[in-house]
């Protein structure tokens, strides 16, 4: 049931002088007219097509005009090859000129592979026909032939031999692209190495942290340790305050009949009972407390004055 949705591609014969009616919703398989490529039949003592492809540029050395060409090699018989040369840029430009988007094209092949060798000359327009000459499909003038047949694309089967156009090969050549690939790979390796280094460092840091807890015999969580530290800090502050305030009292400016009767401290409040000190003389006696703006409360009971300071 899904085949219903599958778009069938239509075969299209692409020639610069042939008018095409393009449906933007359809997909096409392009047969390249002989006017769009160069072809040579060669016999070489080579076994594989990729070996022939390597030397293909030299085979066309004096034939091809200036340009950036790609090559396709088809093996016919042992040591006999058909070598095709085509220019991606020119083909892409023609597609655009004909109103065809590359996304609509499912594939490309050479007309050579689609037309039967015993076929009559096929008329492609009012001036030209395509016909086989020495096993190679060529473009010839219509006038040369008395009997021709109109080209009917529905008769053609999609050839097995296909090519892919390289869209950017005319901007950057392949060797440059491979250099870019090498550079990016190198950069990627550097990034991976850096990532691994950081990951290892992170791991060792976690281990160091664990060792730190063991070395200093800390509680399992930082929260617990912080709480203990806060307790110690509070205790230290209280001890310092207690020492300072008692010192202030001991060094207070007492006159005759003025003296300290008692000190008491319960962990948060320091109570000092003074004898002979009145509210009026308090500023002299506790001048340090006033100067340092230390808050305290007082309570007078007869001759005795109780000073209370929060610690």
């Amino acid at each position, binding site marked *: 049931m899904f085949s219903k949705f599958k778009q069938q591609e239509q075969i299209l014969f692409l020639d610069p002088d042939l008018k095409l009616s393009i449906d933007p919703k359809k997909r096409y398989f392009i047969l390249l007219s002989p006017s769009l490529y160069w072809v040579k039949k060669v016999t070489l003592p080579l076994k594989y097509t990729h070996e022939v492809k390597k030397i293909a540029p030299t085979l066309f050395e004096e034939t091809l005009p200036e340009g950036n060409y790609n090559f396709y090699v088809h093996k016919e018989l042992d040591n006999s090859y058909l070598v095709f040369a085509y220019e991606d840029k020119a083909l892409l430009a023609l597609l655009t000129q004909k109103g065809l988007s590359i996304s609509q094209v499912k594939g490309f092949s050479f007309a050579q592979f689609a037309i039967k060798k015993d076929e009559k000359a096929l008329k492609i327009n009012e001036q030209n026909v395509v016909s086989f000459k020495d096993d190679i499909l060529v473009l010839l003038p219509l006038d040369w032939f008395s009997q021709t047949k109109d080209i009917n694309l529905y008769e053609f089967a999609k050839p097995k031999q296909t090519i892919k156009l*390289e869209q950017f090969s005319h901007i950057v050549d392949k060797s440059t692209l491979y250099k870019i690939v090498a550079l990016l*790979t190198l950069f990627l390796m550097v990034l991976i190495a850096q*990532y691994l280094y950081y990951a290892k460092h992170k791991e060792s840091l976690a281990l160091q942290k664990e060792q730190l807890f063991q070395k200093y015999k*800390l509680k399992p969580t930082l929260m617990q340790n912080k709480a203990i530290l806060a307790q110690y800090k509070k205790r230290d502050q209280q*001890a310092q305050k207690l020492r300072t305030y008692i010192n202030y009292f001991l060094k207070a400016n007492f006159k005759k009949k003025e003296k300290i*009767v008692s000190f008491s401290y319960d962990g948060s409040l320091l109570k000092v009972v003074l004898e002979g000190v009145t509210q009026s003389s308090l500023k002299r006696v506790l001048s340090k407390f006033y100067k340092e703006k230390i808050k305290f409360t007082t309570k007078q009971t007869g001759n005795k004055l109780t000073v209370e300071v929060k610690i």
Partner: protein
Amino acid sequence: MNRINPLHLIILLLVSILFLFFQLTKIQSDLHEEEEAYKHSEQIAKELVAYKKFYGDKQRIKKSLKMILAQGSLKKAKIQTKESSRGITIMSKSIDLYALNSLMSKLFNGAYPIKNLQIKRIDNKNASLRLEIQW
């Protein structure tokens, strides 16, 4: 054999680089946080050890108190000590004010965690003392 299109390879590499770049930024930030956390933990640990040495070391407190109380000037005061699981209490019914001054200076300078303190003047020369140190 079809060779891989270098353009596809470049796109794949760029995507990988971008992905790795984000991962690298993330791990760098994680590492920075971990380093800060480690430094913070180390600082807390060192501070804790220092405080524990002063306020939490039961043996040190006991030993140094014993040395202070063994001084000749305090012998007359007949100082009594009472040890419990929570701390130690120092008591004297009558201590000379000079001896008291010397004892308190030593206690205050020695950073002892004083929990409770009671000093009452008895007369012009003597006072009573009750001091509780908590560990």
